[in-house]
């Protein structure tokens, strides 16, 4: 999970449709800069575009099973399947 706030702006991150070394290359809707999680670093780095060389820090996130997660966090909300 990454922060998407930069210089007081909120970026809309999405998949660019590209992968690089089996990792999705992201981009932001606002400037179409490309964002990538460089191996050995934390967070996202803008590898090309308006925000070149800027970084977005990451927050804790883990892949786990629902039953284990909700046992640890009984008040957890869950993303609903999209209606559209």
């Amino acid at each position, binding site marked *: 999970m990454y922060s998407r706030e930069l210089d007081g702006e909120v970026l809309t991150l999405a998949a660019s449709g590209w992968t690089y070394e089996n990792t999705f290359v992201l981009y932001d809707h606002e400037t179409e800069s490309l964002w990538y999680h460089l191996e050995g670093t934390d967070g996202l780095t803008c590898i090309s575009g308006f925000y*070149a060389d800027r970084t977005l820090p990451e927050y804790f996130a883990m892949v786990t099973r629902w039953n284990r997660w909700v046992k640890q966090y009984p008040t957890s909300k869950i993303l609903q399947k999209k209606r559209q």
Partner: protein
Amino acid sequence: MLPYRLFGGGTYGGQVAKGLQSAGRSRIRSRGFMAWLMAAVCFGYSCGTSVEEIILVEGRQPEIDRGAPSDSAGGAPSIWITDRTGKKWDIGHAVARYGFVPEKFAHGLGPGAIPPILEPLLLAPGEPGYPDRNQSFLVIGTVLEEDARAYPLQIMSQHEIVDEEIQGEYVAVAY
């Protein structure tokens, strides 16, 4: 050889499996990406979405055009790669500054192929549809300022990104 019956069998199933196999030969070694790919296949197949189109990747390299220096790329010579929608992306800075190899950019599905979730709907405990606590499906779990949220991989595999706001913080949950 991947079981083509998984993809509906027949000639089309065989083509999908072959497409996966050839795409997989040199690129898909990362466990994470393979997990995404298989999740996308399984969930897409069961959900009736056209995930097969995403998987049928051509093995060819992206079209690469090298051009004059561009300000928007941070001053490095522009290198354009074209995705399958015809959209061009300047990766010159990525090459000059981070050593990216243009030929290694793959898929090029275009920005609309895997749309992010921009307005996520979340269920709280007690609300109708909140899943039984004994179910063991996979999720991405996050906690930010004591606000715990779970994002099922079945959904994440189809969207890759959820643009969220958690306790006033704007974040992107990524698979």
